[in-house]
């Protein structure tokens, strides 16, 4: 009862029994009626009841007081909600500024995603309970990192930890690889099952609208996500490249507190996501660039190595040829001198005084002849038939490097599909190079109007195989029969020894060579060579 006789509680001074809301430490309110009305009565249901009664029994002006009271309370509520919203916005804005400046120098994707999820989950940020980052690649969206507690107990301990240590936003945004990997490991199982097609819901909707979305318990989504979230609502925020390519997404929820997300927060999430997208794209581009630079550097090194090798092979072959040429030009005179000395020796009398001179000429010429023979032998083993362990893949790559431009001029495109880690074969490197060069040349020449040349390789049983396939017109049957015969040629310029020599080389290496042909569809030459067992791991002897 707020009425005490003729008086109301809000008019009685210095009597603690009239108001149960005045606390002992608020004694001044007993005498200061004005303050009491401001602080206590304004929210007291008794005052409203009294005003109603007074309006009915005394004067309808009390009704006006009641209306004013209601209106005042309504305005107060609105103002306080504006203040709250403004405070939240200020806090988020402040966080955004810090996130933005902290992301600026970062090129590491782990660090960026760590900071992003801190921003989405930290109390000073968006304050979600839990966040998952997914990255897009090749039409898939895969779980990459997550941050948050697994249970209410862990949540309490995390939040207490932050409070106890009095961590600032700046502290929280500091990247810690240790925490990153700990969190990643903690969510390993969940992250592993988070593997979606980019068109699965809700991602399809997410990337189509390009805005943050709220997913409720009734929305139709991927079964994996549904079984994970059950009926907990969650938000999804997209990351885009500057050209609108999906880079990834973040999934956010309040599975512990059940707090609803406001419209302002959704807008803030999008702004956060934009910041993160920019950083992420920069990092991914940087990674891609680094990878490409690596590939280029490797290609460059190989190119240089190959060029050196080509030069070496060339010069060795040239030396070999030159020496043999030289020997040939010595050989004929020696044969003539020694031969004629023999003839002369037969024609003179055995006891002639001249015979000792003829013998001397003969002896010296024979010595020269023997020296030449030995030298040829040396040159041949050194430059012509030295055997080594050959990496066929490298021979082919080397060859293609040489041929590609020339082939292109003829409209022939060379395509390689070579087996990795092909075992080595034993043979003469220059000869094998020449042999495959012959086969490739023939195939290119078989396509005067252009086409495609496929060079493939593989391993079967104890052999490696190399196939050279063209898209030329094929080989007529009568030509096919004579293909590997010496001096057989269909070309205007050609010794007819190319294919024959190739076959000889391959057979000397213990391999074989086969040609299969389909009229109008081209030819396939397959070379099989026995590989060197147990040498796969050894370094090539020629390199």
């Amino acid at each position, binding site marked *: 009862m707020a009425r005490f006789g003729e008086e109301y509680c809000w008019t009685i001074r210095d009597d603690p029994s009239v108001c149960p809301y005045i606390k002992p430490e608020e004694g001044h309110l007993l005498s200061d009626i004005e303050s009491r009305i401001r602080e206590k009565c304004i929210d007291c249901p008794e005052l409203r009841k009294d005003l109603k009664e007074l309006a009915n029994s005394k004067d309808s002006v009390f009704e006006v007081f009641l209306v004013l009271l209601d209106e005042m309370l309504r305005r107060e509520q609105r103002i306080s909600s504006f203040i709250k919203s403004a405070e939240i916005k200020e806090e988020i804005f402040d966080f955004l500024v810090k996130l933005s400046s902290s992301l600026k120098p970062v090129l590491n994707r782990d660090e960026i995603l760590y900071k992003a999820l801190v921003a989405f989950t930290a109390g000073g940020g968006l304050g979600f309970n839990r966040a998952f980052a997914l990255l897009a690649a090749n039409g898939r969206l895969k779980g990459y990192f997550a941050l948050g507690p697994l249970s209410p107990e862990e949540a309490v301990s995390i939040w207490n930890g932050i409070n106890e240590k009095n961590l600032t936003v700046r502290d929280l945004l500091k990247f810690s690889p240790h925490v990153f990997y700990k969190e990643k490991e903690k969510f390993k199982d969940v992250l592993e099952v988070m593997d979606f097609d980019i068109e699965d819901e809700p991602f399809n909707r997410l990337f189509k609208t390009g805005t943050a979305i709220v997913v409720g318990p009734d929305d139709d989504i991927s079964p994996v996500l549904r079984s994970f979230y059950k009926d907990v609502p969650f938000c999804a925020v997209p990351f885009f490249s500057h050209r609108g390519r999906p880079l990834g997404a973040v999934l956010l929820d309040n599975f512990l507190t059940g707090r609803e997300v406001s419209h302002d927060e959704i807008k803030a999430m999008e702004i956060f996501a934009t910041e993160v997208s920019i950083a992420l794209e920069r990092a991914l581009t940087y990674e891609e660039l680094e990878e490409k630079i690596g590939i280029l550097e490797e290609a460059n090194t190989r190119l240089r190595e190959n060029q050196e090798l080509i030069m070496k092979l060339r010069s060795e072959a040239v030396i070999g040829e030159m020496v*043999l040429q030289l*020997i*040939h030009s010595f*050989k*004929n*005179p*020696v*044969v*003539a*001198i*020694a*031969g*004629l*000395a*023999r*003839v002369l020796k*037969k024609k003179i009398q055995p006891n002639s005084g001249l015979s000792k001179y003829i013998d001397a000429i*003969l002896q010296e*010429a*024979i010595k020269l*002849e023997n020296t030449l*023979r030995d030298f*040829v032998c040396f040159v*041949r083993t050194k430059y012509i038939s030295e055997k080594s362990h050959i990496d066929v893949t490298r021979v082919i790559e080397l060859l293609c490097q040489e041929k590609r431009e020339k082939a292109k001029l003829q409209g022939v495109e060379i395509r390689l599909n070579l087996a990795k880690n092909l075992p080595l074969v034993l043979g003469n490197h220059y000869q094998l190079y020449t042999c495959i060069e012959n086969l490739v040349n023939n195939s290119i020449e078989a396509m005067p109007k252009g086409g495609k040349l496929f060079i493939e390789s593989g391993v079967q049983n104890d052999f490696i195989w190399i196939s050279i396939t063209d898209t030329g017109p094929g080989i007529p049957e009568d030509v096919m029969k004579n293909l590997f*015969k*010496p*001096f057989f040629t269909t070309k205007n310029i050609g*010794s007819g020894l190319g294919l024959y*020599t190739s076959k*000889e080389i391959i057979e000397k290496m213990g391999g074989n060579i086969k040609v299969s042909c389909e009229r109008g569809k081209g030819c396939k030459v397959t070379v099989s060579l026995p590989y060197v067992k147990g040498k796969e791991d050894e370094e090539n002897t020629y390199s």
Partner: protein
Amino acid sequence: MRKILIVDDEPNVRLVYKEVLSEKGYEVLEAESSRETFDILNREPIDLLVLDIKLRSESGLDILQRVSKQFPQIPVVLCSAYISFQNDYTSWLADSYIVKSSDPEDLLKEIEKIIEKRGKGL
């Protein structure tokens, strides 16, 4: 008398062969180019050809190819300055192969072997 044609562009080498072969009772003709070779082959019957694999301006192998087409009945002994074609070419076009040497024994032996074989075949 068996007629042997020597094709070599070195006159002194031809001189050696001519001496050695004449002494054994063969009639020896000489040519130093492919033109001269075919002039003789077209003019008169030859029993055997001794052919240098490497002539100054042309390849003995070209001559070999033409001879085996136009005169398949004439046996050929291929000569070269060093061992290189022995395994590769003798089995199909030339009947025999020798490495040039001041010692005529090898050449004489090969010629006798071929002529004997042909003689039996006839």
